[in-house]
């Protein structure tokens, strides 16, 4: 479909008289925005001539809070950043802090973080694709997706006590170790999920209505994707083969065998397909990581004085007692260099990075988050021009814009 080029010339809307154009306010409270964002659309009949996205309806000052909470406290706030995959945010934040402090994690912790980050990716993609389905009229698909999300919630709840806002990671480790029950639940999920995924694909991938509504809609070319800083599935669906898990393997991604899922069409349908394929790859990674989970401690050693020692260490060893004391007294915790560093992970939505500035204190001097959603939302006018009003929801859904991450 080349609506944008053939029958409707959008390149020169200013030249024609514009008084027949209709301005439509879309959002900030609209069911298809899922959260709070606003679009001012200029319509000619049903065709969208131009769109002006606006954000900030959920700006809560995350980066300012980051300057006031300590490195371990701030993880609770990162939960609320991309709230449909909080675990990935936890991992990204502590990845950045550990880069700044120069902490090397234990092998077990690296594997555990890989597993939870991949489960978070699955749950994020489920919601994103489910919402695309919902907006284009496939309600059953959404219910299938949400049921599996509940299963992942259940795994997280068994792991750390919270089903939704997990706050799981800590500097130099994690708040809990995997228990046999958690491992069993993940194994069950690995067995049952591919079947549901097959069902979901059968429901939607070749569904005539869905394909007609998403194929050729919102096309993003490869050059544009790079020039406009798109990352993650949005960029990969346009043919940018950039995946931080392969390009700069953080944690333990070097150890696993998986593929980077790409497409070349760059439309909504390609983004949907990339997300579906990534879920399968994530399952492969989780399976490999779970079977090869190293033994040993989760947290770094007590001599590094970053992670709290266990109760046994506190009461039976002098190092544990000292380390516990140092960590719990004010201004005696971590040794933070007066430096700054950036670390990013391949979050479900794209490159999620934190630029952390340390000034020797327990809290970051500046905690800048590099949110993928902002750059994807800025793409929106480009993608929608020339399409119809009903395509707005399909394009919005396929970009997977999460307002809390967008506005912070």
């Amino acid at each position, binding site marked *: 479909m080349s609506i944008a080029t053939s029958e409707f010339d959008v390149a020169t809307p200013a030249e024609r008289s514009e008084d027949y154009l209709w301005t439509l306010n879309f959002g900030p409270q609209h069911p298809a925005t*899922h*959260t709070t964002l606003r679009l001012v659309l200029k319509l000619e009949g049903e065709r969208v001539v131009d769109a002006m996205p606006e954000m900030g309806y*959920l700006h809560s000052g995350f980066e300012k*809070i980051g300057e006031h909470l300590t490195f371990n406290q701030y993880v609770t706030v990162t939960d*609320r950043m991309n709230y449909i995959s909080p675990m990935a945010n936890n991992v990204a934040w502590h990845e950045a802090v550990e880069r700044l402090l120069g902490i090397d994690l234990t092998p077990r912790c690296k594997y555990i973080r890989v597993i939870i980050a991949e489960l978070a990716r699955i749950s994020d993609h489920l919601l994103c694709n489910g919402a695309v389905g919902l907006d284009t009229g496939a309600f059953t698909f959404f*219910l299938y997706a*949400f*049921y599996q999300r509940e299963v992942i919630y259940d795994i997280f709840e068994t792991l750390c006590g919270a089903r939704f806002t997990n706050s799981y990671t800590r500097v130099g480790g994690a708040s809990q170790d995997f228990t046999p029950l958690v491992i069993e639940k993940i194994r069950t999920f690995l067995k049952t999920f591919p079947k549901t995924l097959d069902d979901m694909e059968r429901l939607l991938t070749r569904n005539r209505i869905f394909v007609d509504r998403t194929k050729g809609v919102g096309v993003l070319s490869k050059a544009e994707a790079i020039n406009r800083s798109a990352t993650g599935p949005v960029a990969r669906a346009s043919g940018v083969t950039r995946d931080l898990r392969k390009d700069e393997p953080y944690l333990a991604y070097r150890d696993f065998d998986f593929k980077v899922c790409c497409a070349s069409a760059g439309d909504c349908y390609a983004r949907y397909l990339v997300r579906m394929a990534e879920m399968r790859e994530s399952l492969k990674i989780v399976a490999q990581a779970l079977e090869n989970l190293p033994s040993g401690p989760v947290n770094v050693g007590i001599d590094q004085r970053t992670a709290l020692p266990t109760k046994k260490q506190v009461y039976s060893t002098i190092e544990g007692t000292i380390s516990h004391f140092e960590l719990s007294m004010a201004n005696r915790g971590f040794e933070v260099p007066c430096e700054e560093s950036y670390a990013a992970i391949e979050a479900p939505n794209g490159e999620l990075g934190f630029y952390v500035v340390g000034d020797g204190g327990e809290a970051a001097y500046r905690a800048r988050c590099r949110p993928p959603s902002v750059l994807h939302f800025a793409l929106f006018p480009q993608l929608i021009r020339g399409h119809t009003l009903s395509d707005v929801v399909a394009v919005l859904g396929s970009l997977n814009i999460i*307002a809390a991450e967008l506005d912070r």
Partner: protein
Amino acid sequence: MAVNHSPGLELPENVVVSRLDELANWCRKNSLWPMPFATACCGIELMATGASKHDLARFGAEVFRFSPRQCDLMIVAGRVVMKMLPVLQRIWLQMSEPKWCISMGACASTGGVFDTYAVVQGIDRFIPVDMYVPGCPPRPEQLIQAIIDLQDKIQLEGTITGREFETANRQLRKRALVESADPLTIDASRNPVLQRRLSEFAETSSAR
């Protein structure tokens, strides 16, 4: 239910006598149409409440309508920030009476962890709220409980003329530095039954 018919009037067995208020309350409470004002994380739990596992339809409140004109229960799920508050107020004004509001989660109720320059510290400073749901975010079960509680509240204190909304302005706002002049209202606001009795008492005493 108060059966207060005059002596001598014979009623067949299949006729139930009730107050009109009770009937209206019964209708209203069992057909709540929620307006999901979902801004943040709580919105996802709100979606989970409506989705397959928790199934809000069991409590007669599953008809999510995204137009405020069709709704009578606003569920504010998530933090409301400076830029969003005028939108919230406008949507509240667009809803038709009778209407109720549930403030879902710590952020909507108090600002939660976000004690920052942009976040409104509790929506009840600026719009009336009937039910608060604690949690960050609350579990779906908690939201369902809040809806059940709201139904009880409607059944207990509702009137067909909406008198309870007129007296509810005595629930003084939480606005900063405003102190309650009437100590009774603070206690009563926690207990709908007590509150109803107090308001009836106030009316009868003023009538004398």
